[in-house]
């Protein structure tokens, strides 16, 4: 269970938000909505431990996330605005290294299956640098088919995807929640995702 | 004819090491280049055969 208490975030001399609090339990989905620049990405990075909150704290199963960072990070998959892919490695290699770094054991077959699931199997052996914007994004998202972590934090996963891929991804997210996973997501698009419980956090600039 | 005997020939007036290494190295480069190219060509053909059979 992920709990946030009285979070405040200061960027430069701007207070992006304060007193943000929520609780997300197994099977729960949380949308973080708001205009551009309202602090959605900052909140997500804060929940990952990439940023330190100005005030407040984040707890994972009752324990502050900074306390046993490795434990929390095993349970966490974060995909931000940036894809985290190396232009010179192939899609397959990128996916494998990415997943292994996050602690998942992944062989060639599993990785290829993930790429197939999101429809970029044809690009498996191309260096990522030559792929199109949307294909790159899909290679990054393929990690969601390999990870076994409970909490997924996704920053605008649908941006740059074509409509077919949006549906595939939405289905995978729904499946994750059915299996008791949790997802925190930001998006500017309307996409239907099933979850055991859904909540919305709206940030205003 | 410059050489009194084969051993004189191989000895190269005491400069055997330098002379033979020079010529030998040249020969080595030539042979290596030709063999490497053969291999490369065969490999390219094999690969496109795989592609063709796909």
């Amino acid at each position, binding site marked *: 269970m992920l709990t946030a208490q009285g979070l405040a975030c200061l960027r430069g001399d701007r207070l992006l938000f304060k007193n943000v609090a929520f609780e997300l339990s197994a099977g729960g989905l949380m949308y973080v909505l708001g205009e551009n620049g309202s602090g959605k990405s900052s909140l997500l990075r804060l929940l*990952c*431990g*990439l*940023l*330190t909150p100005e005030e407040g704290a984040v707890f994972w199963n009752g324990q502050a996330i900074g306390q046993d960072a*490795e*434990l929390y*990070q*095993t349970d*966490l998959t*974060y995909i*931000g*605005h*940036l*894809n*985290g*892919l*190396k*232009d*010179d*490695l192939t899609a397959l*290699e990128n996916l494998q*290294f*990415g997943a*292994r*770094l*996050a*602690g998942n*054991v992944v062989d060639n077959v599993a990785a290829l299956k993930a790429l197939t699931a999101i429809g970029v199997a044809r690009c498996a052996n191309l260096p990522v640098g030559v792929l199109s914007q949307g294909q790159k994004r899909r290679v990054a998202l393929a990690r969601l088919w390999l990870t076994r972590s409970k909490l997924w934090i996704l920053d605008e996963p649908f941006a740059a995807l074509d409509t077919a891929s949006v549906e595939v991804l939405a289905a995978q997210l729904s499946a994750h929640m059915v299996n008791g996973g949790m997802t925190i997501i930001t998006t500017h698009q309307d996409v239907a995702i099933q979850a055991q419980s859904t909540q919305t956090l709206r940030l205003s600039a | 004819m410059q050489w009194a005997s084969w051993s004189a020939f191989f000895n190269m007036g005491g400069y055997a090491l330098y002379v033979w290494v020079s010529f030998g190295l040249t020969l080595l480069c030539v042979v290596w280049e030709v063999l490497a190219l053969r291999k490369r060509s065969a490999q390219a053909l094999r690969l496109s055969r795989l592609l063709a059979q796909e």
Partner: protein
Amino acid sequence: MNEAWIIVLKRDLLLAFRRRSDVATTLFFFLIVSSLFPLGIGPEAAVLSSIAPGVLWVAALLAGMISLTRLFAADFADGSLEQMLIAPQPLALLVLAKILAHWIVCGLPVVLLAPLIGLQYALPNESLLVLVWSLLLGTPALSLIGAIGAALTLGVRGSGLLVALLVLPLYIPVLIFGAGAVAASQHGMSAQAHLSLLAACSILALVLAPLATAAALRISVE
């Protein structure tokens, strides 16, 4: 072996070897830089051999440093760095793996090629040996110290200036001991003292640099 640091090491080496020319490029760079000095200074062997320690060490430093300044820049820009930061593994270990990969690709070849160039500079045989030893002991320190600088200058913060001024001087002792070792052996003295100091530098750097680099990375990514 699925430890995260091995993954990082493997990935970086793969990235380097993807273009086999990369390693060769380091070598040729080293070769070219060390050929520049005779062109500037003139062909007399005596003069050349007196500047050889300095030249070879500067060339080694450069070969490492040019690529080092960008050690984390690509990871930062494409988001891999974020992923390393939230990997369930100590960051310092991952950083060490990256540095190790860099040293294998850029440092080691230089160490191995150095004696050949020493020959061009008319260095005597025992000095050649000392040269190799000094580079072997000293270049890891260069990579380690450089990593701190590379991490600190990441991102948009304007603090880079100060940092560059703080980190670069740390190179100087390594260069002085390294070049000093070779020079000592040229003058028939023992290079032992210099080499021990070099090793000490490297060990100190090995202990402190990964931690400092990891901390710097966390700050840069915030």
